[in-house]
Each structure stands twice: as structure tokens, then as C-alpha cells.
């Protein structure tokens, strides 16, 4: 029986006798692991931004020495002038850092870990030690990926989508060790993700507090649940593909080598079979957090809770059968292509349902535009733009014209930055008090939001126009083409706006760091939210609750008619509330 007690999550002990290393370094507490992911991924978000600034420098000021470029090696940027070999590494690693080490861990590693046990009323995750392993594996993966810049011949350079045969042939790409690092890092990250997902899924299924039925779970938890299922089933395919790529590079296998009968389309099918569920992994948790925050900021129940759940499940299901829309120009079977066009258009429907429900939630609500609410509403607006461009591109004939152009870059940044990143700003600000016991500064948060919104649109909206004009992705020097020379002023403008956008983020960094030390001490429930996590002190103690709470209602009971307050916590018992059905007693 000792193994049972050791492995099961524990109620908080009054005397916490863990050492510093056990508490903060090799911690099995889901909250600490979530915060560890937060610091790791914010670092990679920053690094990804630094890479983006260098990309924009080259596009806005082609061939000119970059300020500070002197620290780069001569083989990459002699005299600070970015070489094509370095540019393509920047483009590849910007995508890789942002997708795999910034957004994915920020949304899943941070918020799934931090929020799930708190919001469902559990002491900790089902497998705390596996949770710890998941973080440290991700850390190792990040270290390997970062190190790939410093190995001989530099980092991988076939785009974050790593298409073969360019990625499989060092003689073609110029990257050997860097490519191997990429493959190994991705396999490690896949493992970290799978370990995390199995934890989240098991915890949500089996460790919900009494009364927390499936349809009383907050939408953030629903989204994280479906995201975990997507991650569980998609990442192994990527790992398999990365392993095959690694073998092509090191063992001389021929998976992607057309000369020996291999197929480049195989890489694309494998990658995008993973890649499309991946992009839903990158947006769903954001959608979930935004749902919670919009209901809170509107002081109204979420409009259409059940349809939101079905939309989330629908997105999760449909996301598996649309991957070919990334491959319309690959030369795949045209019948297959048409099928993907239809399924891609269908998947717009559940997302649209969610958008209408968010608007319905805000309609006639008692709107409080606190910083998380601002960012959440910004998310909805920007996601609509990104989503609409997506429906547009779903039509194969249109995609033939704009595939691999800046139109795609505009679309993906509208959904990932305008979408996920705004959701992250909202979520980090919202749950900062729960994590650190302090509030983030509100005026700075508002200024950060408005400036980011402004510059973000100035950077990425013109890219739609560039893309339509034929400005291709990942290109080092667009001025080599006559028809693009005229668009160079637009590139220049975008670069200046991008510098402003990056500079604005220092407001957020400053706010975050300053608030950690000097922020206003947070009251227990600063947002007057109904979630279970707000019934705990800030920051929440190890083990969360002494005794697991009982849940009597759903999470969005705001502005209940006849109630003294405009919010009702899930675990507060009213005279009319019934106790949940007792769990079945063990036989004899």
C-alpha cells in the first residue's frame, strides 16, 4: 500500500518539509512545473522575436549591416550583413522556436499544468513525477535546439516545416549537425508533450472533484482536454517523421530520397498529418482561456456553453482530416486535394460558432474592460481576420496563387500572434495573481495592449497585399524580382512597424518582472471569478486544498437574478443546492 500513498497526489501538509531543490527545481507540484514552463517559454518567445527582428532587418534594409551584427560569425554575417545561409537559418529557427518552444509550451505546458488541477478541484496531477519528467525533457529539447545555432555549419535551414529532400541532404542545405540537433530536439519535445498529455487526460477523466460533472467544467479545461488528445495522437507521428529524417541523415536510409525510390511527399504527409492538429493545439487553449475571461469581463454566463463544448470537440475531430490543405501545390493526388478543400471549409463552422458565442456573451453584458478582457476581445477580433483568410485559402484554386507567399505568413501570424499570443497576454495577466500572489500593473498592461494591437496590424496586414502580389515566403532578397521591386517600400514599412512592435513587448517584460517583485499584493479573488482556483489563497499552497471541494454549479454563474453579488463560486453551497451523487462504494 505504500506505493499507493506515495504516488497519489497528497493533501497539503501543514509542515512542508521539502528542500529548496525539491520545491523549486525538481518539483512535482503542478503549479511550480507550470511556472517553470512559463519562464522557459517566455525566454524562447523573446529569442524567437530576436530572430524575427533580424529577418525583418534583411527584408527592410537588404544587404545593409545590421546594428549589433558584429557579434555574429563571419560565416553567417560578415560585417553584420546577413548572408542567405544565415537568413534561412533565421527563418527556420524563428518558426521552430515560436511554434515548439514558445506558443505550445506557453499554452499547454503552462496553463494545462497550472490550471487543470486547480480548476477541477484536484490536489495535483494524476502522475506528478511524470509531470516533472515532462518539463525537464522539454528543457533538454530546448537546450539542444538552441545549441544547434552553435554547432559546426549552424542550425537547420529548411524552414520550420523541414521539407525533404532539402532537410535530408546536408550537401544541399549545408546543415549537418544542426539538422541532427533539430531532429533530436523534436523527438525529445514530442516525448515531453506525450507525457504531459497523458497526465492531463488521466487527471481530467479521473480526478474531478465531486459535483464537477463534464458539463460543469470550465471551457478552458474542455479546450485543454481536447488539446491534450490532439497532442497525444499527433506528436508521435512527428516523432516518427523526425526519426526517419534523422536516419536519412545519419544511417543512409532513403525514406525521402527520390533517387533511391524514396518520396518527398511522404515527409509532407507525415509532417502535416501532425502539423494540422498542431495548429489546433496552438489555438484551442487560447480559445478556452478567452471564454473564461470574456464571461468574467462581461459578468454574464458564456453564451451557448453546450454548443461551445461541441464546437471544441468538433474542431478536435475535424482537425485530423484537413491536413492536405497545406499540400495543395505539392503534386499530390488531385482527388485527395478536393476532399481536403471540402473538409477545410467545414472546419470553419465550429470556429465561427465560438466567435458568435463570444459575441453573444458580451452582448448586453456589464462589460469590465480589465487588461485580460481587452486582450481577450482583441483575440476574438484578430482571430476572425486570421480565420477568414483561412477560409479564403481553403479554396484550392486560390491557394494555388498564394501558397508559400506572404499571404500565408499574414494568415498564420494573425491566428498565432493575433490569436494565441493575445490570449496568452490575457491568460498570464489573469492568472498572475494566482501564480505569484501579486497583480500586474493595469495601466502598463493597457498601454501594452493598445500599442501591440496597433503595431501588430501595421506589421501583418500589409503582408496580405504583399502575398497577393506574389512576394514569396522565406525569400532573402525580394528585389531580385522585377515585379517585387515596387513593393520594397512596403517591406521597409513593415520592418519599422515590427521594430516598434518588438520594442512594445518590453513593456510587457517590464510589467511582468517588476510585478513579480513589487507588484500590488493581490486579494484572493481579484477578478471576482467563479472558478475553483479562486477559493484558494494567492499563491496557492502545495497540494491545493486540505479537502477536495464539492461543486454545486457550473463555472459561469455571473449576474444570477436575485443574487446579492454578480458572481457565484462553483463550490459555494446555497440552501437549495443538492449534494452530488456519492461515488459508488467499494463492494463489501
Amino acid at each position, binding site marked *: 500500500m505504500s506505493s499507493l500513498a506515495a504516488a497519489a497526489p497528497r493533501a497539503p501538509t501543514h509542515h512542508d518539509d521539502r528542500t529548496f531543490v525539491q520545491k523549486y527545481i525538481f518539483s512535482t507540484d503542478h503549479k511550480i512545473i507550470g511556472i517553470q514552463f512559463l519562464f522557459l517559454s517566455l525566454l524562447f518567445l523573446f529569442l524567437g522575436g530576436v530572430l524575427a527582428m533580424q529577418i525583418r532587418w534583411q527584408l527592410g534594409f537588404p544587404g545593409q549591416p545590421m546594428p549589433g551584427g558584429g557579434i555574429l560569425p563571419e560565416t553567417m554575417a560578415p560585417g553584420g550583413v546577413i548572408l542567405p545561409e544565415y537568413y534561412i537559418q533565421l527563418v527556420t529557427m524563428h518558426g521552430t522556436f515560436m511554434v515548439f518552444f514558445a506558443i505550445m509550451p506557453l499554452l499547454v505546458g503552462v496553463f494545462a499544468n497550472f490550471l487543470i488541477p486547480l480548476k477541477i478541484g484536484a490536489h495535483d496531477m494524476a*502522475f506528478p513525477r511524470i509531470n516533472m519528467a515532462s518539463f525537464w525533457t522539454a528543457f533538454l529539447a530546448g537546450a539542444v535546439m538552441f545549441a544547434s545555432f552553435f554547432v559546426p555549419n549552424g542550425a537547420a535551414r529548411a524552414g520550420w516545416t523541414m521539407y525533404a529532400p532539402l532537410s535530408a541532404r546536408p550537401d544541399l542545405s549545408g546543415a549537418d549537425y544542426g539538422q541532427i540537433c533539430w531532429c533530436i530536439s523534436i523527438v525529445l519535445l514530442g516525448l515531453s508533450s*506525450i507525457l504531459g498529455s497523458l497526465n492531463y487526460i488521466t487527471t481530467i477523466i*479521473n480526478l474531478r472533484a*465531486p459535483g*464537477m460533472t463534464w458539463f460543469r467544467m470550465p471551457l478552458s479545461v474542455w479546450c485543454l482536454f481536447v488539446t491534450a488528445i490532439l497532442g497525444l495522437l499527433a506528436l*508521435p507521428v512527428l516523432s516518427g517523421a523526425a526519426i526517419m529524417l534523422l536516419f536519412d541523415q545519419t544511417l543512409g*536510409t532513403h525514406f525521402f530520397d527520390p533517387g533511391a*525510390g*524514396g518520396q518527398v511527399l511522404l515527409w509532407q504527409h507525415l509532417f502535416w498529418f501532425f502539423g494540422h492538429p498542431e495548429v489546433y493545439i496552438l489555438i484551442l487553449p487560447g480559445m478556452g482561456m478567452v471564454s473564461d475571461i470574456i464571461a468574467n469581463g462581461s459578468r454574464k454566463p458564456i453564451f451557448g456553453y453546450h454548443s461551445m463544448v461541441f464546437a471544441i470537440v468538433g474542431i478536435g475531430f475535424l482537425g485530423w482530416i484537413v491536413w492536405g490543405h497545406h499540400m495543395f501545390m505539392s503534386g499530390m493526388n488531385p482527388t485527395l486535394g478536393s476532399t481536403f478543400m471540402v473538409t477545410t471549409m467545414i472546419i470553419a463552422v465550429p470556429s465561427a460558432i465560438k466567435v458568435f458565442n463570444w459575441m453573444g456573451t458580451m452582448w448586453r453584458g456589464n462589460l469590465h474592460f480589465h487588461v485580460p478582457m481587452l486582450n481577450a476581445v482583441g483575440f476574438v477580433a484578430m482571430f476572425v481576420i486570421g480565420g477568414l483568410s483561412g477560409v479564403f485559402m481553403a479554396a484550392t484554386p486560390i491557394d494555388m496563387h498564394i501558397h508559400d507567399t506572404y499571404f500565408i505568413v499574414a494568415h498564420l501570424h494573425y491566428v498565432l500572434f493575433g490569436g494565441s499570443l493575445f490570449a496568452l497576454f490575457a491568460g498570464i495577466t489573469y492568472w498572475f495573481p494566482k501564480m505569484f500572489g501579486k497583480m500586474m500593473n493595469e495601466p502598463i498592461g493597457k498601454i501594452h495592449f493598445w500599442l501591440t494591437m496597433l503595431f501588430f496590424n501595421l506589421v501583418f496586414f500589409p503582408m496580405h497585399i504583399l502575398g497577393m502580389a506574389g512576394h514569396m515566403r522565406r525569400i532573402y532578397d525580394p528585389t531580385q524580382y522585377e515585379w517585387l521591386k515596387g513593393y520594397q517600400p512596403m517591406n521597409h514599412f513593415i520592418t519599422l512597424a515590427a521594430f516598434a512592435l518588438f520594442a512594445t513587448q518590453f513593456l510587457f517584460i517590464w510589467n511582468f518582472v517588476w510585478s513579480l517583485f513589487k507588484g500590488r499584493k493581490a486579494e484572493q479573488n481579484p477578478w471576482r471569478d467563479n472558478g475553483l482556483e479562486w477559493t484558494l489563497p494567492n499563491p496557492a499552497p502545495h497540494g491545493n486544498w486540505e479537502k477536495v471541494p464539492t461543486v454545486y454549479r457550473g463555472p459561469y454563474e455571473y449576474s444570477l437574478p436575485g443574487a446579492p453579488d454578480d458572481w457565484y463560486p462553483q463550490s459555494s453551497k446555497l440552501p437549495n443546492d443538492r449534494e452530488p451523487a456519492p461515488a459508488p462504494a467499494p463492494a463489501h
Partner: protein
Amino acid sequence: MTHATATLDQMRPPVPAEPGLPIYNNKLGMWVFLASEVMFFTGLIGAYVILRFGAPGEWAKPNVVLNVPLTGINTFILICSSVSMVKAFAAISAGDRKGLSRWLLATILLGATFVSVQGVEYWKLVHEGFTPAGFTAGSHITELVAQGKLSDVTGGLYGSTFFTMTGFHGFHVTCGVICLIYVWLKSLRGGYTQQDYRGVEVIGLYWHFVDLVWIILFTIVYLI
């Protein structure tokens, strides 16, 4: 012999919870993990399918390069190890701790035999000129090509897919054997009782899954 429901409930964590699935966390976690493993092997098998269907030449026929009868026996060995695993599980669920250890040891030995036979097979194949990169020049394999029994156009693909698929399966079996050794040693110390044998059931699920994958792989790689 029946499975006592009491033991199952006593293996659940003693924390009040809304009913989820009526199985304890470790078992649910292992099933969830196995779902991800299904997808991993799907990726590998999908790669094999597309490469074989689109191959520029004829694929090797069964038993020309690979030794089907030997692998058939090896398959049978792995199936026997699955039987011994389930007998181990049945033993501890009836409270027979000595039987548990005995059957676990049998499973380990059978599993290790499987991996060893595979390892020997690999060594022989490479020795004969069949490698992950394809056919080595001037080897026994190229003689077969010269005799018209084998097309060397698809040799590279054949090698790549064979070694990757069976190699990863073998890696999973090896990991399984290592975990089984841990479980066996724990069983010798009396770590499992009729009231709590979660670790045995969980490793058992993994082991049966590994057998199941091999059943599919054997057919696809060796027989078709």
C-alpha cells in the same frame, strides 16, 4: 477463479472524485500512452505503405532476403511471453505471489530471447549485405540480385523500412524487458499483493501491446 472487485476499488486513490472511468489512474494512463504508441507505429507503417506502393521497381518477395520460418518461430516465442505475462497477472490477482514471480521470469526470458533472435537476425542480414542504407556491393545479397531473385532498385527502401520498423519494435520490447525486470525484482521482495498489483497489470498491458504490434508488423513486413 474470479477477479475480485474489491481489489480494484482498493487500488483507486483515496481521494473523493466525480466518477470518471472505473479504472485506476495508472491503468488509464497506460491505455492513454498506448493510444499514442498506436499513432507512432501508424506513422512508420504509413511510411512503409506509401513507399512500397510508389516504389519504382519490384519489392522483394517474402523469404528471399528475410528468414520467414525463423521469424515465425520468434513470433510464437513472443506470443508465449504474452501468455506467461497474463498468467503472471492471473497469479497475483488470485494472491499467488510465488506464481507471479515465476511467470514474470518466464516472460522476461521469452522476451529476451525474442530480442536476441532479432539481434542475431540483424547481424546476419548486415553480414550478408542487407543494411538500412540498402544492399552492400559485392555481397551475398547482390548475388541474389544478379540471379534475378531480387530487384536492387527497391533495395534501399526495403532496407530503410525493414530496419526502422522492426528496430523500433525491438526497442520497445527491450524497454519492456527492462521494466519487467524491475517488476520481477519488486515481486521477489513482496511488492505486489492481491490487494494491490497495479504495476503488474500496467506492465502487462504494455507487454501485450508490444506483442500486438508485432503480430501486425510480422504480417506486413515478412509475409506480404
